[in-house]
């Protein structure tokens, strides 16, 4: 076993556990949608390439390693695909050795063979990833439906340079259809059909190694729901592979992307994937339209995430600074660690850079959508929500949580949840305004805490960290009598009101007037700020705010004139 924490060392030949005389050469990459990991295995009878990947440089490197191995002993090259997604195989086209049907035998499960031979852009993911694929001939179709009735026995035989290759149908194991491939006098390698991530997904066992393709990612946001994804099949496949792992004999698990795993770690990971998969009912197919919609939502969300997290980080720096001034150096030093501003800045910048490349045409909507998911899942790990809730305005945290949650929900293939109920608009607006006018604790509470140092410290921190948004602004609220209740998602509406009030206060409004009323077929909430400094966009509401208003059940427009900015939210009246 190599040193360090890696079960196998990348870019190096090393013994295959459990199979004497066999060696494995892993080519692993960080997780992305451009190219998969690749693995070379050499035995006395053959060289096996599992997933050539998606990048020409990768194929060139693999081919050079194959040539070196063949220079020592000439053997057939058998390329087996774990499934027919373009990032796992298209690189083979770019190298003469791997692309030559006389030099390389290409094998894949039957459904994947059909997809590749017919250049099916949907099942190969080429359409979503913006790639053109030519039809490619498949030499060995594995685990064919038509052979399912055969209990056991050879189903195909071929001879390459006098080396016999035989595919043998075996009885299903752990509920998984399977075959063995016999090459010369080598021990058999086993193919398990594990559909779910795609109809043709297979796991391949060679000695104590198990190659599992994209099983670990099959329930991930943005991948659950891709064309050909099947929840029930995935659950069966995961259960079968976990059972296989539990029987022993497999030491190391090689995934299609990312780090190689010890069998125990892989089993736990696949258990979590199985659990996640169980919750994924009614996932919409991630087609090009859905990818475009999700990518646009990612971009709109990140505009707001950027502002929200910068304000939260800034507010923590501010509280820390005030505590330092008060001589509470210990508390001051601990506060910035509750939210990793540096990490957030890096993530936001990373997404902004990716977005520029996306708009220049380098990436497809699915790439942008997945990038958004990657950034947001990391953002979720940058802040200690429970601790922050004691110091920062809870509406900031609530909105951050909903923003990140809504995006992940959408990337998972669902629409963000909406709970539309009939809402009394003036009462809801009144509740929102009270929340932004009253301090986090009353003067009486602060006085009462004076004898309890811990309680006093807690209230003091909250008072500094949560000044009421509207404390320095003159607010006038008037409501027409008799406005009928309208269907509204109350939580999204409250978030929207807070964002709009923040915008007015933040751009300098010294007076804000709020009016609720009706006009023709709609109930209307109007928020006007006096003294606002203008924006170059003339006050057009940000895409995020318009989208949020739609999720709340209304429509939003904005007007800007002579230092005043007005937002109007319209909710249709129930006929």
């Amino acid at each position, binding site marked *: 076993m190599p040193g360090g924490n890696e079960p196998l060392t990348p870019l190096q030949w090393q013994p295959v556990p459990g199979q004497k005389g066999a060696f494995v050469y892993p080519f692993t990459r960080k997780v992305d949608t451009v190219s998969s990991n690749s693995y070379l295995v050499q035995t006395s009878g053959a060289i096996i390439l599992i997933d050539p990947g998606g990048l020409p440089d990768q194929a060139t490197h693999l081919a050079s390693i194959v040539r070196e191995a063949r220079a020592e002993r000439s053997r057939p090259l058998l390329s087996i695909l774990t499934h027919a997604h373009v990032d796992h195989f298209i690189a083979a086209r770019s190298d003469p050795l791997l692309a030559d049907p006389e030099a390389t035998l290409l094998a894949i499960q039957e459904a994947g063979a059909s997809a590749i031979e017919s250049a099916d852009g949907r099942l190969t993911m080429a359409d979503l990833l913006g790639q053109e694929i030519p039809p490619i001939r498949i030499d060995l179709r594995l685990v064919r439906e038509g052979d399912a009735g055969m209990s056991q026995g050879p189903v195909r035989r071929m001879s390459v340079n006098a080396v016999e290759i035989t595919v043998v149908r075996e009885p299903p194991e752990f509920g998984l259809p399977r075959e063995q491939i016999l090459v010369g006098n080598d021990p058999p390698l086993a193919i398990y059909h594990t559909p779910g991530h795609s109809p043709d997904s297979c796991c391949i066992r060679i000695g104590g190694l198990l190659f599992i393709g994209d099983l670990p990612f099959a329930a991930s946001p943005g991948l659950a729901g891709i064309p050909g994804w099947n929840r029930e099949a995935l659950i069966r496949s995961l259960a079968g592979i976990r059972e296989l792992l539990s029987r022993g004999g497999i030491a190391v698990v090689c995934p299609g992307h990312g780090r190689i795993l010890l069998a125990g770690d892989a089993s736990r990971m696949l258990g979590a994937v199985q659990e996640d998969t169980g919750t994924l009912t009614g996932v919409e197919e991630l087609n090009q339209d859905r990818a475009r919609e999700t990518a646009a939502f990612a971009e709109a969300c990140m505009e707001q995430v950027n502002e929200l997290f910068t304000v939260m980080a800034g507010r923590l720096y501010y509280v820390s600074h005030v505590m330092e001034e008060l001589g509470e150096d210990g508390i001051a030093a601990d506060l910035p660690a509750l939210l990793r501003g540096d990490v957030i*800045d890096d993530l936001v910048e990373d997404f902004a850079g990716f977005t520029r490349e996306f708009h220049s045409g380098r990436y497809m909507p699915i790439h942008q959508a997945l990038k958004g998911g990657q950034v947001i899942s990391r953002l979720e790990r940058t802040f200690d929500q429970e601790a922050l809730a004691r110091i920062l305005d809870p509406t900031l945290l609530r909105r951050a949580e909903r923003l990140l949650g809504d995006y992940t929900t959408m990337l998972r293939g669902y629409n963000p949840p909406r709970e539309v109920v009939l809402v009394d608009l003036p009462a809801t607006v009144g509740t929102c305004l009270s929340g932004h006018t009253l301090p986090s604790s009353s003067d009486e509470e602060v006085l009462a805490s004076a004898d309890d140092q811990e309680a006093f410290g807690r209230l003091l921190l909250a008072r500094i960290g949560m000044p009421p948004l509207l404390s320095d602004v003159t607010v006038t609220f008037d409501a027409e009598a008799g406005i009928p209740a309208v269907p509204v998602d109350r939580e999204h509406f409250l978030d929207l009101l807070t964002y709009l009030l923040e915008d007015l206060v933040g751009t300098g409004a010294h007076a804000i007037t709020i009016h609720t009323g009706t006009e023709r077929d709609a109930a209307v909430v109007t928020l006007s700020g006096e003294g606002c400094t203008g924006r170059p966009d003339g006050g057009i509401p940000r895409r995020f705010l318009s989208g949020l208003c739609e999720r709340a059940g209304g429509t939003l427009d904005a007007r800007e004139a002579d230092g005043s900015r007005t937002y109007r939210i319209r909710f249709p009246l129930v006929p």
Partner: protein
Amino acid sequence: MEITTAARGGAVVLSLAGRIDTVAAPMLEQAVNRAIDAGDRKILLDFSGVSYISSGGLRVLLVSAKKLKGPGDRFGLCCLTADVLKVLRLAGFTSLFSIYTTEGEALAGW
């Protein structure tokens, strides 16, 4: 981000242009430190060319203000764009610094 330094009316004015992002924030910190190390105790940051400030940028403002709070020291910001001013207001930073509409207004008071 571009930073232009000029001495005016007994103060140093750092005119900033671009985004104060994760790369630019340390540049700004170094520029302010250079001015302080050179003996300048009145520093004005002209934000007229700044469209975005990250949390790292906010931290640099705070660190700079702490270094310039002795008698006779001055640290201020002027010409803030609406988006940057909004972030400063919502983060509570406007009570920590002197903020001016124009460079002239700042220097006249110093």
